[in-house]
């Protein structure tokens, strides 16, 4: 009789994960852009903000993605922008998800007074006009890095996630398998993270995707009004610059399309992964 070992569980999970085409495609696209963000900046000699060559050049062997109105290398901007976009998405989205998940799970499982307090906190943060607060905070800090920006974005983005997870936890905690775990002497914390959270895994991943995308867009907004990183580049900044300098009207597609397409592809890949992961996590959806 085979007593299941945790290692076997993991390998089985991996087996279904690797067999799922949606997951493979999504992961492939994501890894491609991730590698691009890591390696890309080393392949160019130009700094994203220096005036490297003639202005408004279409893509050529010298400037792979062409140049901007000011003669900056678009490829260099794209590679560096991709990097900071990933950082903002990961840190901002990560913090937003983490805070939302912890508060949502605790409020939902504990209920009562803990729920009242956490719910009040959630509602307060939810009704704060996030963008104005971000603008004020950004305006106070003289030197701003991508990291600070991500942390602020993450700390203001969690409330809706917390609310949704709280509601899900409410419905899951009354299920009998939770009672069974309690009768097995499991601690509340373990029940929350080993019984309730796994049931929401695909949902938690969706939350992360939305937080990831939201963080990127929030960052782009801040960048646009001049409150982004004081020195640096991001895809949002590129797009906003392109719009600002009428790249669309002047037919400079090479300035506009790469950042837009990259954001769309990254978020799209995450969505496809989410559907695939749903099948991996929920055995009922699997095609056996």
């Amino acid at each position, binding site marked *: *009789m*085979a*007593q*299941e070992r945790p290692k076997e569980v993991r390998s089985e999970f991996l087996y279904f994960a690797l067999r799922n085409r949606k997951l493979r495609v999504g992961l492939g696209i994501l890894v491609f852009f991730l590698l691009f963000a890591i390696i890309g900046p080393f392949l160019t000699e130009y700094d994203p903000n220096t005036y490297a060559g003639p202005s408004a050049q279409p893509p050529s062997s010298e400037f792979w993605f062409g140049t901007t109105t000011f003669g900056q290398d678009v490829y260099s901007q794209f590679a560096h922008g991709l990097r900071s976009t990933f950082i903002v998405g990961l840190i901002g989205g990560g913090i937003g998800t983490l805070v939302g998940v912890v508060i949502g799970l605790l409020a939902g499982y504990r209920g009562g007074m803990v729920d009242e307090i956490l719910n009040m906190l959630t509602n307060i943060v939810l009704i704060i006009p996030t963008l104005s607060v971000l603008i004020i905070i950004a305006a106070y800090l003289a030197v701003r890095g991508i990291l600070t920006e991500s942390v602020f974005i993450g700390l203001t983005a969690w409330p809706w996630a917390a609310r949704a997870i709280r509601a899900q936890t409410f419905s899951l905690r009354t*299920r*009998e*398998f939770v*009672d*069974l*775990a*309690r*009768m*097995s*002497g*499991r601690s509340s914390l373990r029940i929350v993270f080993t*019984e309730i959270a*796994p*049931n929401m*895994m695909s949902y938690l991943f969706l939350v992360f995707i939305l937080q990831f995308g939201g963080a990127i867009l929030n960052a782009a907004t801040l960048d646009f009004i001049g409150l982004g990183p004081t020195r640096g580049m991001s895809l949002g900044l590129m797009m906003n610059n392109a719009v600002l300098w009428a790249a669309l009207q002047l037919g400079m597609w090479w300035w506009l399309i790469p950042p837009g397409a990259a954001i769309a592809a990254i978020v799209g890949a995450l969505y496809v992964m989410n559907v695939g992961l749903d099948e991996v*996590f*929920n*055995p*009922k959806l699997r095609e056996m």
Partner: protein
Amino acid sequence: MLKLDGVSKVYRVGTFGGKELHAVSNVSFEVPDGEVVSLIGESGSGKTTIGRMILRLTPITSGTISFNGVDISTLQGEALKDYYRQVQGVFQDPFSSYNPIFKADRIFRIVREEFFPGMKDQEWNGKLEDSLKAVGLNPAHVLNKFPHQLSGGQLQRFLIARALLLDIQFLVADEIISMLDASTRIDVLNLLADLKESRGLSILFITHDLSLGYYISEHAVILYRGCVVEMGSTDRLYNTPLHPYTRMLMAAVPRLDKKWEKVEVELRGKQSQITTGCVYYDRCPEAERSADCLTHRPPLVQVEDDHFVACSRYME
């Protein structure tokens, strides 16, 4: 021995918790060692709440539940775990008792991690095999499967096997066969009876089905709207039901030799809130009730040896 003494459960309902809902009021009974006691009642009678309070899944509003003389509401940490070593429950819906995304035998692994952390693989596997065999399952056929790959009867036996791993003395069986096929029902029922005989297990058998209660138990407790209306030895209760509610229930048991058109029962209950009078006042046949019933709640009185009833007609 498990003993309930004046146990009540009150929920706050309505806007700002302004109203009270008495799910269980002032219930006292005991389950002696090695006996099966049936807790019988309709939906909403509070029978599941009582089971959950015994299992420490729902806190008690007032009264005490004691197990072998120890008040269980004060148990914490290790003491509570020790209590669960002796007292376990099996619920109505075998499908929702399993976390759908894990394999069904994970319930055994949790028991091992929590209660037998130091046990060697071989010893554990032997123990698991014994307890699966005790509930009539073939380990090779049922282990390493997802809940949706097993039948309701198998899942329900799994839950009983899980309880048996712990050398329990007391089992709360909450409607455990109501979701099973008729053919598997009797097997599970007989399994409980066997366990009682072979292990001296005490069982609180919660059901809405009178005939099941008669089949399996020595004592029965009839619950109506959170109050005990009649209790006593199964034989006495079933042969001479005294409370009008019990008699109505007896008359409502479907019988093979009778068409179900002229049942002499009144099932139309008005849902009014009774706070002081008899809980059964609304549905009590007119002839039997008096004005007193509306103002005084009759206490549970002994009418004969091992037979108690809460009805004003039997008060001296």
